[in-house]
């Protein structure tokens, strides 16, 4: 307990013995009833600011579950996950949504850009909920797109962008709110090597004042991280 407290003081994110179980034969994410499946079990870890952490492991090892918990999209069945002294697991849905808005930037394997919006519109989207003025949203979105090398694509819709360009728009969207934590789940999973490298560059270049967690099967992506946490069958590989 003392070690955990000490870790918490130094770290941006601290997970202590988090376990996530799902009920089978019902909705995967509903709780109660059916057979219980343990996705991750008793995982403890800490992530510091300015650190790039890789999460590795085969399919079904619990990478995505851990990423969802780190991103406050899901909560552990047991254990605590502290972020700046706040136990995210204890927050209500509404509070976790607010937490995500203020603290977390998300990058998904499949980009998840809104097709009806331009690259600029997609990047500016998180700022809408923050109440940022239209002019500032536009300015910040364009700056961020320039930073990821897409200043000539600001008005393009996702459909007219390549996969790598779409992922860089997603990275810009994750960075535009200047979050303390970036959670990227297989960010290079659908990209070729060169494009994947450019996306990682865009992600990793921004870690001076934030932490980046990257879950990936891609060894070249994991090689770019400061350290790698290996998962196997829902637990940390020793």
């Amino acid at each position, binding site marked *: 307990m003392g070690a955990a407290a000490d870790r918490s003081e130094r770290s941006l994110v601290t997970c202590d013995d988090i376990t996530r179980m799902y009920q089978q034969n019902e*909705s*995967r*994410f509903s709780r109660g009833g059916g057979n219980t499946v343990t996705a991750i079990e008793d995982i403890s870890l800490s992530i510091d600011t300015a650190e790039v952490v890789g999460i590795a492991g085969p399919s079904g090892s619990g990478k*995505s579950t851990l990423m*969802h918990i780190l*991103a406050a*999209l*899901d909560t552990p069945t047991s254990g605590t996950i502290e972020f700046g002294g706040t136990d995210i697991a204890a927050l209500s*849905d*509404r509070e976790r*949504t*607010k937490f*995500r*808005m*203020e603290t*977390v930037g*998300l990058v*998904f394997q499949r980009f*998840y850009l*809104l097709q009806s919006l331009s690259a600029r519109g997609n990047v500016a*989207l*998180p700022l*809408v*909920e*923050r109440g940022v003025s239209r002019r500032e949203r536009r300015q910040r979105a364009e700056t961020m797109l320039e930073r990821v090398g897409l200043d000539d694509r600001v008005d393009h819709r996702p459909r007219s962008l390549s996969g790598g360009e779409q992922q860089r728009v997603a990275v810009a*969207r994750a960075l535009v*709110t200047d979050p303390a934590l970036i959670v990227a789940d297989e960010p290079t999973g659908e990209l070729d090597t060169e494009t994947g490298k450019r996306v990682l560059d865009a992600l990793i270049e921004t870690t001076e004042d934030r932490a980046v967690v990257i879950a990936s099967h891609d060894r070249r992506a994991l090689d770019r991280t400061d350290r790698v946490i290996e998962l196997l069958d829902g637990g940390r590989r020793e």
Partner: protein
Amino acid sequence: MVVSLCGIAAAIAVLVVVTALALGLSSTATVEGDNVDYWIVPETGDVASTPLPSEGPRLGSTHDIAFELQRNDRIAYITPVAIEPIQLTSATSGNETYVLALGVLPADQQQSVVGADVSQLNATYPHYANGSYNGVWTGELLASPAAAAQLDVDAGETLRTGQANQSFTVQDVTDSEVTVGVSQVPVVITHLAELQTLAGLADGDLADQILVATNDDTVRETLTGVYPNTEVVTRAGLGQIDPTPTSLPFAMALTAGITSLGIGALFVATMMGLELNASRQRLAVLSAIGFSRLSISLVLVAETVTVAVLGGVIGTGLGLGCVVGLNAGLAEMIGLPAVAVLDSVLVVYGIVTAAVVGLLATGYPLYIARRTTVLEELTQ
């Protein structure tokens, strides 16, 4: 989105057309005078009944009743009004047309009936001749602008009827029109007795209603019971009674409104719901990047209402176009005057209805949004 737009546009277009028709049907002209305060009408009709004579009951012995009531000091002017379509031919131009003839008693002083000063008619009223209807035929006639235009006549010119010794002379062309909906009705005003003779109403001294001008509201009691099975209607009461003999236009408008609201709301809700169902990921992404449930709901409401209002604008335009086409088509094919009314209020009505449809339709998209689970959508 396009399907939703088309659906709401179609519903609003139908609403606009049916409401315009209902307005047209309800906008029938009334036979009234500026100073007329009471109307005695058969119970089956009212003062706003169609200007074309109905086959309903008429009032009898109208001269006797009118002369009797005229002795009452509280009554400034009283006249039975017979309403009959007659065919007139201009002796000058040869133009021939049917006009709506109103037979009234002349007034001693200026008195307006459907915009015509009936004091211009010979006050001696000779043709009646104490009920014998064989006095001098004056042939005096006041023509509305529409009647004068269709017959191509002016004051002093002669109009022939089917009877050789019963022609008319235009005394004056009035300034005001009688309109039904947006079309002007050709109306002429003449001596009651002469119209009765011409139209075969002299036997029984028939007329359709009696107009009474007075400044004394106690007159109503006197008028009530003058005829059995009649009612006395006041000007003040006009606003409170149905403006038409039947409730058909109101029923049409009401049905169109309810149908548009119901079908429009169900259609938009279903289509928006289906579209949303197919793009739940969008909701999940919004939630994942920090949009609150309230913000997402507001986005959905704004989206649904915007689609509905846009559809409403398109539908209103379509509907107004259909109304113009309908009126033009009917005029071209069967010579019917405008049956549907074009009114700016229809624009407001169409768009407001569409906005209400949008608001009513938000329930289903909001339900879908509420049931959307972020992780389920983003991990598929």
